[in-house]
């Protein structure tokens, strides 16, 4: 079995649009959540959302290149370009069959609406514009990035609800560990905009708490729902020998990957599914549970979801549970992107030698056995971190990442 190391990361997040600004937000606990009053005018129950500020769409791509891309694909491209820069991989190096591309994504709601609106406005398909064809595909990110980056290895998109990002990183690592690829560009993205989450708002899943920065409160007794968020996260994974041969700096390693399905309910997470994925990831890493230094919980701040994750964590760590970090307290729930951004955040924290604090966790849930929630920043790297992701349909994916 080969080893898949991380040699570059990039991110466009509600915490910042550069590695430095995101690291700074994580270090100081600066929230990326705010209210968009327009959402109420559109008939939504919650005005809360993560907001990406200061992203320059034209930084890498001209208008012609962007016309076939939804905004989240433009953000994914920017994140990949930053990751490639950090990995010191020139674009010529991607142009071979041993370099692949995989992203997690599970919707194209905003571009699909734009497509329908374009036809309504113009009255004939020939006047809609060519970009709609590609923008509204679920694989819009990978098909555009393939054409822009020029890698000739395989490129594909994976959808597994809010586990999509973790699946993309895990499958990319597998492709390297199995010897199929030398370099994998991977990550995930989540479209922002009220249209993308209007129906989700309609089932009462979102927090309505104010002030906005205190709305996302994972594992807290007073949590009242998640805050939708988004952006794009990218990683360059590389076979360790490939990375060493070219003298690349190694930022971390994907040690293990595990997936499972609850096989129960569409929307209510079960008590064993996530823990089976956690156990599989830890075993795949060749570790015992007590060798995990930190858990980056999925923890979206919903009453049912956090309670289920807590029970799942305690199934794996019944006696000595490592510190639990819940970064969605700062970012909100980045949905499809979250499983990949978790890994990027962990790498960024490790590079700067700290582990961020979980915000807004003040009162443990009296109905649940206690978890050691990390509520103060620690000035040590996350170490061997277990990253959880769980989504609708009981889709679970976990990664063990070496961030020492």
């Amino acid at each position, binding site marked *: 079995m080969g080893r898949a190391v991380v040699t570059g990361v990039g991110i466009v997040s509600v915490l910042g649009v550069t590695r430095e600004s995101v690291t700074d937000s994580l270090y100081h606990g600066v929230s990326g959540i705010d209210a968009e009053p327009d959402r109420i005018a559109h008939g939504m129950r919650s005005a809360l959302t993560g907001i990406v500020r200061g992203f320059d769409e034209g930084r890498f791509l*001209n*208008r*012609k290149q962007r016309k076939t891309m939804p905004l989240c694909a433009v953000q994914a491209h920017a994140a990949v370009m930053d990751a490639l820069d950090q990995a010191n991989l020139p674009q010529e190096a991607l142009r071979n069959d041993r370099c692949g591309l995989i992203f997690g994504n599970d919707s194209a709601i905003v571009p699909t609406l734009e497509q329908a609106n374009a036809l309504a406005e113009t009255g004939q398909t*020939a*006047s809609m514009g060519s970009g709609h064809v590609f923008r509204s595909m679920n694989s819009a990110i990978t098909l555009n990035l393939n054409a822009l980056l020029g890698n000739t290895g395989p490129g594909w998109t994976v959808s597994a609800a809010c586990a999509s990002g973790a699946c993309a990183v895990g499958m990319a690592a597998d492709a390297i560990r199995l010897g199929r690829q030398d370099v994998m560009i991977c990550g995930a993205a989540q479209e922002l905009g009220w249209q993308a989450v209007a129906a989700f708002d309609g089932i009462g899943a979102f927090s309505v708490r104010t002030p906005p920065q205190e709305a996302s409160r994972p594992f807290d007794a007073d949590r009242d729902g998640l805050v939708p968020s988004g952006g794009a996260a990218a990683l360059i994974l590389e076979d360790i020998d490939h990375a060493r041969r070219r003298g690349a700096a190694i930022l971390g390693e994907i040690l293990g990957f595990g997936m499972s399905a609850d096989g129960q309910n569409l929307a209510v997470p079960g008590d064993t599914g996530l823990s089976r994925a956690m156990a599989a990831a830890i075993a795949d890493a060749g570790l015992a549970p007590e060798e995990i230094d930190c858990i980056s919980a999925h923890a979206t701040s919903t009453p049912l979801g956090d309670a289920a994750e807590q029970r799942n964590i305690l199934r794996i760590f019944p006696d000595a549970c490592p510190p639990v970090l819940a970064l969605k307290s700062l970012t909100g729930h980045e949905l499809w992107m979250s499983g990949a951004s978790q890994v990027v955040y962990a790498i960024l924290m490790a590079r700067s030698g700290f582990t961020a604090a979980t915000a807004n966790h003040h009162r443990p849930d009296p109905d649940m056995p206690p978890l050691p929630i990390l509520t103060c920043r620690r000035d040590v790297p996350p170490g061997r971190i277990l990253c959880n992701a769980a989504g609708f349909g009981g889709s679970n994916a976990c990664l063990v990442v070496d961030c020492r």
Partner: protein
Amino acid sequence: MTNDEIAATVNRAIAEEFELAPERLRPEAHIRDDLGLDSLDIVDLVIVIEKAFGFKLTNREAMMDIRTLGDIHAFIAALRDKGEAGA
């Protein structure tokens, strides 16, 4: 609308849609080879020209013979002469 005004309107629309520098928009510029527009861009080229002149092309196939920017100028001028365009 004079021929010069037609050329200026076409060039302005194309420069904006495809972010092309105005000095590249010479009449002899080949649309594919010099301006780098591909078959998808041609679809959008037709749309921006329709918008710029405020008419709908009823015979899009006629545009398939167009090779250069000057061909577009002449195509619109011919429509004007036939009274088919708002030009």
